[in-house]
């Protein structure tokens, strides 16, 4: 789609260079650890070495002898204020600091406050904690057995480790189809525990002013407004009141969902600042980050498809066990304990589906967050796209062809899915056709046949995903009761420049650029003249923040609506200046002209000046608008990804030779930034597909607690991504846009897994668990007698 605005205005469709880049490129970003305040103290945290046990004693005396160590805060200290437990976003509870029991390895046990980073670390090493270890429950299936010890003894009347049961769909009708179907295929799979591993860890600087009773918290949060409200609700009884809390989310070094929850470290820093009356900074290190916060996934799924003999899908059935660790601390909308898992029917039309999830407590860190994922969509898509391949294998059809034969046809949109979604728009065949053409699908199949004849292992993997994102309509979506709208406030200054503030918070997505382009598109002001601000609760309008690819669907829409309100007012001013009626005006981005007399015109800048200097009689001065946007539906971007892998028969190593990603996210605001989002998402897809996992041993020891063991893809493993797109606008979004940030993270893992299975299919392999490490593949090769 050609841009409607000039390169000078730089509205939608222009690959505008990012406004935030000059400061990041010159070391002038403002990340949390860059903040320093006079008299600032440091918090460091004592953590549990064991996964489960009683705390018999905490002896801080040696720590307090260390020069510079001022205080050691424990759960008992917080208990005096009723702050030793806090609610999670899912209305479960989580310890800030324990008073008697630790529930996972690396749990926060005490906070050491000191005058420097180094003194605080010395203090941590000197705090002596006596534990009485208990046998932890690590396996979620064992946690559900009758004789499993009950972990959450703090919950009165709790008799097991089951958290909740969720289900969607018509079970009986689905079961009936399974009984009569020609073909049933089934795969059990685990989408393992992984970590967002943003390169910046979490941290905060809490600054309580005891004279004013005012608290400022600079913190790595993707949702500053919601966090402020939570702080006011949780700590209202100790005198923190919402108007006296300011949360500032500065530049964030990657979020990916990991910076949505409130971690104990934040709360301990705030408590310490309140108690000591001084600014307190807490910056977690990488090991703390990987071991204690923001895990994602950990869904054990058992999936079945019922189909006709020709491969036409009739029904889907999925049973899932979700390992939440010791608390349900995921960040999902309140009414959606299993997130949007019911998108699992994906891109395929079928008669019925039934999905159920049972959540379980274990002795692992609490979670899990929606890691670059609109709440459990990654798990759902992986499950469906894997088992669709199993079906193709079973009925002897090419996996691309089987998908095409089952796609929801483009005429069927808006489409009602059997699990209750109304997909807004789609043209799945178009994305498939483009992906096949870009990668040369037929040629690759021919090459594969030749190589297979020579004994070489090459696989081609296909994934056609449908995403659901942009939460969301307030009738269905809230977090702790706060509806999931988002907001924009746009103010045009007299000289025709503007400031626009939003309720979201960029963590690298480039909002300072793309939001300016949205305002430019609607008002015709050059995007370069629109300053975008987010993240300060004192100045930005209230919003729910940036995660789940919701910024463009919600706050972006709010920006467009606010700009349209401004344009409507500007039209009245233009009519006044041109001495015609509003109906006699034409609008081209940036200019009102008189119909039939295009040389009689005024610019949007002229209107802005007049709004302060020469407004029509009776008109309120100024040119600004605020919009709180409550989307009528979610958006449903989609795409087809095809990749080629080669497997080394000597080592089991999988190399992704090529990867083509065709995405459709509706109308595009900035093609360069969208492509960047896809590149990054794909890399966060190859990670869990091939390398990343946080496993635990039976004693609850974290086996990937640093970057030594948690293998984030480097430039060497990462292929040269090839991207393309089709454009199917959202019918309900004001700009026709959909979200895009997480599509690739969702779509890439099954494409890679399918390619590996495809390479081994002739050996009778139908499934390989992710991450597909060389040892896993080599075991299969050895078992099948093809290892070299």
């Amino acid at each position, binding site marked *: 789609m050609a841009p409607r605005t000039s390169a000078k205005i730089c509205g939608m469709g222009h690959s505008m260079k990012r406004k935030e880049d000059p400061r*990041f490129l010159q*070391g002038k970003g403002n990340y949390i650890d860059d903040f320093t305040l006079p008299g600032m103290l440091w918090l460091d945290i004592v953590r549990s070495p064991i996964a489960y046990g009683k705390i018999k004693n905490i002896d801080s005396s040696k720590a307090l002898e260390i020069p510079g160590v001022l205080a050691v805060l424990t759960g008992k200290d917080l208990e005096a204020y009723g702050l030793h437990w806090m609610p999670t976003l899912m209305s479960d509870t989580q310890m800030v600091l324990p008073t008697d029991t630790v529930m996972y390895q690396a749990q926060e046990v005490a906070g050491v406050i000191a005058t420097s980073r180094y003194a605080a670390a010395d203090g941590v090493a000197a705090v002596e904690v006596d534990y009485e270890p208990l046998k932890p429950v690590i396996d979620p299936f064992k946690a559900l057995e009758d004789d499993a010890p009950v972990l959450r003894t703090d919950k009165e009347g709790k008799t097991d480790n089951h958290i909740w049961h969720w289900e969607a769909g018509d079970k009986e009708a689905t079961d009936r189809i399974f009984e009569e179907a020609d073909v049933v295929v089934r795969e059990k799979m685990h989408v393992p525990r992984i970590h967002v591993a943003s390169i910046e860890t979490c941290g905060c600087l809490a600054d309580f002013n005891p004279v004013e009773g005012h608290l400022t918290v600079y913190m790595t949060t993707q949702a500053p407004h919601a966090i402020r409200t939570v702080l006011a609700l949780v700590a209202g009884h100790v005198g923190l009141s919402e108007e006296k809390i300011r949360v500032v989310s500065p530049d964030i070094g990657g979020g990916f969902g990991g910076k949505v929850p409130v971690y104990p470290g934040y709360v301990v820093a705030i408590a310490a600042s309140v108690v000591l009356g001084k600014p307190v900074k807490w910056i977690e290190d990488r090991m703390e980050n990987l071991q204690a916060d923001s895990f994602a996934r950990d869904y054990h799924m058992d999936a079945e498809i019922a189909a006709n003999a020709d491969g036409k899908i009739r029904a889907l059935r999925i049973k899932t066990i979700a390992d939440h660790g010791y608390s349900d601390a995921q960040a999902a909308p309140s009414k959606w304990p299993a997130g949007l898992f019911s998108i699992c029917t994906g891109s395929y039309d079928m008669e019925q589906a039934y999905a159920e999830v049972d959540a379980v407590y274990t002795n692992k860190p609490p979670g899990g967050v929606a890691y670059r994922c609109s709440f459990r969509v990654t798990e759902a898509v992986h499950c469906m796209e894997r088992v669709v391949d199993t079906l193709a294998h079973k009925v002897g059809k090419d996996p691309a062809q089987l998908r095409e034969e089952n796609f929801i046809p483009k005429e069927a949109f808006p489409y009602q899915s059997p699990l209750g979604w109304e997909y807004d728009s789609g043209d799945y065949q178009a994305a498939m056709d483009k992906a096949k053409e870009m990668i040369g699908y037929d040629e690759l199949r021919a090459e594969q046949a030749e190589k297979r004849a020579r004994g070489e292992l090459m696989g081609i993997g296909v994934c056609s995903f449908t995403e659901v994102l942009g939460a969301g309509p307030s009738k269905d979506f809230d977090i702790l009761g706060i509806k999931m709208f988002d907001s924009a406030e746009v103010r045009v200054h007299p000289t025709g420049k503007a400031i626009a503030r939003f309720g979201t918070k960029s963590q690298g997505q480039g909002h300072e650029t793309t939001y300016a382009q949205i305002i430019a598109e609607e008002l015709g002001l050059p995007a370069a003249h629109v300053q975008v601000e987010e993240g300060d609760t004192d100045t930005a309008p209230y919003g729910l923040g940036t995660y789940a690819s919701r910024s463009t669907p919600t706050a972006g829409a709010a920006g467009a609506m606010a700009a349209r309100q401004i344009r409507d007012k500007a039209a009245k001013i233009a009519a006044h200046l041109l001495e015609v009626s509003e109906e006699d005006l034409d609008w081209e981005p940036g200019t009102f002209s008189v119909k039939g007399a295009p040389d009689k015109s005024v610019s949007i800048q002229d209107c802005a000046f007049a709004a302060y200097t020469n407004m029509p009689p009776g008109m309120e001065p100024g040119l600004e608008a605020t919009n709180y946007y409550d989307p009528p539906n979610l958006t449903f971007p989609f795409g087809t990804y095809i990749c080629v892998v080669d497997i080394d028969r000597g080592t089991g190593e999988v190399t992704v030779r090529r990867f083509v990603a065709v995405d459709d996210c509706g109308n595009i605001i900035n093609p360069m930034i969208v492509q960047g989002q896809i590149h990054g998402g794909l890399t966060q897809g190859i990670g869990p597909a091939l390398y990343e996992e946080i496993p635990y041993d039976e004693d609850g020891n974290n086996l990937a607690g640093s970057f030594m063991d948690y293998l984030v893809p480097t430039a060497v493993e990462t292929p040269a991504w090839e991207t393309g797109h089709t454009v199917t606008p959202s019918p309900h979004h004001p700009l026709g846009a959909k979200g895009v940030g997480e599509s690739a993270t969702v779509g890439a893992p099954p494409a890679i897994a399918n390619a590996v299975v495809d390479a081994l299919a002739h050996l009778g392999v139908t499934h390989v668990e992710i991450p597909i490490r060389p040892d896993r593949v080599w075991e299969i090769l050895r078992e099948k007698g093809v290892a070299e």
Partner: protein
Amino acid sequence: MATHNINVTVNGEAHAAAVDSRLLLVHLIRDDLALTGTHIGCDTTHCGACTVLMDGVPVKSCTVLAVQADGAEIGTVEGLAGADGMTPLQEGFQEEHGLQCGFCTPGMLMTGTALLESNPNPSEAEIREAISGNLCRCTGYVNIVKAVEYAAAKTGEGD
């Protein structure tokens, strides 16, 4: 703990400092010299966010003691742009969208600067190898590679 008097030149400016034996170079740079463009992303020297140049060689300043830098010339991201504006590499990162959150970017820039110094026209494989000690979670590396290529081409034009 022993204190040592050291002299380091950072971005051309001489500094004398009295430092503890254990003070990491990255903390000297960030906390004592207030050059916060150099970041910290891990504890095990894997992520490369803290990469600086020490006598022209990229080092991960989270695993160099400040005392080891005594007498050294240190280069950080703040020293790249000059009166003429950003370097071709910095420009390349913006032109090719080689950064998103910006957190790994200073380390990438320092590694890339050293690469181009020693190999003015690197191949894609050489670029990927050179930056393999710098993790980026946002960009997928493709555009970082392009940014280095952009700088190589632009610098080549000027020769």
